[in-house]
């Protein structure tokens, strides 16, 4: 390696740390100069974390300013009008925010991207209008003056300490959650919600949780703001404030919790420093009241265009668990999953797992699948073939719960499961891979597979926060098992790579490993050999047969006919959404209808 590229690597690794230190130093300078700025800084960091909570779960919510307003006014009213002690008024106000969040999350979180943003923008406006409409309590449009003990100068230090400790506590909660199963699930949702759902992650529940966390943290920041400033004006929480908050989180990056804290530190300090500190040369900026807003707006645009990952992305995979990498594993190549499943006889088929009856699905009048019936038994390998558009992927989507059927039934172990949400179907023991690969792109290969074990892990949020030994043990075990799976698929060398950077064939194998991590009883493989060369394909065939010996049933969609003929016990042929043949490979290969569908009538 030449000296130049080594220097470049050093800059790449060291640069972000220097930047982070510079931001912290600038903020420290600010606080020493004017203690009032300390409060502002801490509150902004808290608000940034509130926006982060939603962005991290891929929700563009603009509700943080609204929740901060509720927290601020509620706490102020409780303390001033009802005489509640300040230290009690804050938690009560925060709980109120939580209650409001739970009520509005029911309808609002069903919405997608754009609509969620619009609705939360409307929510902020509603809060603002409501505040104006009840002037008796809030001071209406003129604002509320509140002098509680907490706002007096003598209390300033106590207040700043309380604020700082609260922020540290919140950071701890974010940090510990992000290193647990909970954080991994959220990252999976951010990278690919659909795949996360079919890995058994309850996307809706996690999004609800993220929204609630965001509301609670925003309410807390608002309440502290009220007692720090001493007077409230509903202009404090107008739309541009919501944009500021979004700016902190976007600049900081939605990847890791410390990003938004740094983002808030940067965007709070920069305008002040430019205006005052460096103001000798830029004296005209002193009277330029819009300067901070312009800076915020520009930062928002520049970051989203040129560095969409924000500051956090300069610290690669900082959020992921370190220290339990391969070198720390007790048994690096333990055969995972395999050991647990009792091996069954390879010959005759077991009991029926999945039974599809008269299943149909039409998309705006076009029948993608109609009247399909099929039984899948334990330990059987079922090939699903047919020309493009025959309905093969549709069947997998229907069984995995991503698409509800238009007609017919899907029974799993005798119970009807059609219409269930995908994560519940995954929990029942049905896993799948995707024709167009859906890995969790920003995560390492190992993390991808561990994410697949989500439903087999027990750690709750509380356990993650307490960092209980049981939780750590579970994490280590999950990693061991994931490593075992990667080993079996010949991927262990790639465990630390970013999943999105692997070759096509390797990505397919990672998807299979991730699906197996769920310990499924039925595995549906959608074109697993696409993009693989002959040698890889035949290795995959051996692997699939090996899985069959563990008793896993498989439904394989594939265009490599050699593979299908070799491994399948039974082949189902679809054409235009209908089953045209079913039977042993040799019989299907001779079937008139099949030949016609594939080769056309002569």
């Amino acid at each position, binding site marked *: 390696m030449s000296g130049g590229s080594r220097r470049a690597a050093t800059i790449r690794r060291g640069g972000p740390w220097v930047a982070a230190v510079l931001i912290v130093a600038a903020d420290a300078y600010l606080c020493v100069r004017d203690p009032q700025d300390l409060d502002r800084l801490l509150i902004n960091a808290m608000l940034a974390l509130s926006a982060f909570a939603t962005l991290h779960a891929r929700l*563009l919510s603009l509700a943080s300013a609204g929740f901060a307003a509720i927290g601020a006014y509620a706490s102020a009213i409780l303390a001033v009008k009802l005489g509640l002690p300040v230290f009690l008024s804050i938690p009560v106000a925060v709980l109120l925010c939580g209650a409001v969040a739970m009520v509005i999350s029911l309808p609002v979180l069903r919405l*997608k991207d*754009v609509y969620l943003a619009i609705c939360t923008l409307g929510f902020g406006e509603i809060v603002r209008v409501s505040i104006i409409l009840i002037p008796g309590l809030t001071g209406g449009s003129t604002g509320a003056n509140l002098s509680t003990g907490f706002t007096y100068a003598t209390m300033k230090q106590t207040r700043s300490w309380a604020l700082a400790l609260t922020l540290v506590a919140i950071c701890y909660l974010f940090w510990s959650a992000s290193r647990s199963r909970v954080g991994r699930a959220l990252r999976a949702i951010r990278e690919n919600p659909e795949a996360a759902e079919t890995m058994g992650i309850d996307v809706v529940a996690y999004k609800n949780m993220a929204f609630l966390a965001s509301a609670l943290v925003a309410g807390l920041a608002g309440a502290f703001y009220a007692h720090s400033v001493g007077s409230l004006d509903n202009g404090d929480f107008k739309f541009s404030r919501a944009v500021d908050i979004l700016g902190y989180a976007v600049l900081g990056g939605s990847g890791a919790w410390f990003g938004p804290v740094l983002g808030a530190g940067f965007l709070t300090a920069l305008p002040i420093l430019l205006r005052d500190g460096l103001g000798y040369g830029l004296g005209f900026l002193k009277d330029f009241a819009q300067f901070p807003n312009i800076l915020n707006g520009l930062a*928002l*645009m520049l970051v989203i*265009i040129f560095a*969409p990952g924000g500051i956090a992305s300069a610290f690669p995979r900082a959020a992921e668990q370190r220290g339990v990498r391969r070198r720390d594993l007790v048994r690096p190549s333990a055969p995972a999953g395999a050991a647990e499943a009792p091996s069954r006889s390879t010959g005759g088929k077991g009991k029926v797992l999945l039974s599809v009856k008269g299943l149909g699905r039409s998309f705006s009048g076009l029948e993608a699948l109609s009247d399909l019936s099929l039984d899948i038994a334990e330990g059987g390998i079922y090939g699903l073939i047919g020309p493009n558009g025959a309905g093969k992927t549709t069947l997998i989507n229907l069984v995995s719960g991503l698409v509800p059927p238009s007609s017919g039934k899907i029974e799993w172990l005798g119970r009807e499961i059609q219409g269930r949400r995908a994560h519940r179907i995954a929990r029942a023991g049905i896993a799948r891979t995707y024709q167009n690969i859906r890995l969790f792109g920003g995560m390492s290969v190992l993390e991808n597979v561990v994410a697949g074990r989500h439903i087999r892990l027990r750690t709750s949020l509380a356990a993650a926060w307490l960092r209980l030994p049981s939780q750590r043990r579970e994490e280590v075990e999950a990693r061991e098992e994931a490593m075992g799976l990667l080993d079996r698929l010949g991927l262990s060398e790639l465990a630390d790579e970013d999943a999105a950077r692997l070759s096509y064939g390797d990505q397919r194998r990672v998807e299979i490993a991730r699906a197996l991590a769920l310990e499924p009883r039925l595995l549906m493989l959608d074109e697993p050999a696409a993009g693989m060369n002959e040698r890889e394909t035949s290795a995959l065939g051996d692997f699939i047969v090996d899985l069959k010996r563990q008793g896993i049933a498989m439904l394989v969609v594939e265009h490599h006919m050699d593979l299908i003929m070799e491994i399948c016990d039974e082949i189902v042929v679809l054409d235009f959404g209908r089953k045209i043949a079913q039977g042993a490979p040799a019989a299907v290969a001779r079937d008139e209808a099949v030949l016609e569908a594939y080769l056309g009538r002569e």
Partner: protein
Amino acid sequence: MDFGILADPVFFVQNVVDGLSRGALYSVFAMGFTLIFGVLDILNLAHAATFMWGAFAGWLVMAKASMPLPVGLAAAMLAGAAIALALELIAFRPLRRAGARAGADKLSPMISSIGASLVMVSVAEAVFGVETKRFPDRVLDPKPFLIGGIGGVRISRAQILILAASVILVAVLGFFIRRTRIGKAIRAVAASPRASLLLGIDVNSIIAITFLVGGALAGAAGILVALLTNDIAPGMGGQIELRGLAVVILGGMGNIEGAVLGGFLLGLVETFTIAYLPGGSDVKDAIAFLVIFLILLAKPDGILGKGKAERG
């Protein structure tokens, strides 16, 4: 409470007139909004800031340079078009290029437009100040026409102008989109940018033209609102933004005819709420949100959401 007004036909007609002219403004604003959404499938949250700059451009030309009204309208539309084009080049196109590399995502353009909007409003505040600007009387004689003599229905010159202008704009846009080559290309890109590209349509140029047209509509709406309310300020976009969103959702995202109808509907509903509901003027600001909320409650993907999802 005075129930007499409920039966008063003059009062009723007066509210229809006021509601229609209010609605015409919403329609013109929302048309540009929904046009850009339909083509790009993203929300341009800087549309309201474009609208505000259009109002200021018209005000500068008419109040400061004493130009006649048609020149003011043209200036507002030009300014709106130029700003919207700049937005496309600075805030959206680079993201599309980046999106081609890493998977496209709908949040980034929206965030980018929020940043652009903040810059535009702040620059306006820095240049013009935050306080309200007004037209001198010579620009628009504030004396209304009376239909049916004293005590009859009052129509201001601004209202006549707004209704006439909006009808013309709707007709011209309709013709442009339905009949012209470029209009057809715009519809093709809205349906599928990829397929359009394969068919040899210069997608980037078409998107730029869409922004020009949408921006011109925003600018027109800006100067028309300014003439009606005689109130021009950097914050004026905030008032209409939420209403515009409501109209766009009401009419179906990307649906121009829907936006026109939705605009008139919202204008009428708001006006009648103020007129006939006690405390209506406090409630009217909430109507737009209520519309958004109720529609999305029933159809979480938006009115046209389903069709769009299945197309892909």
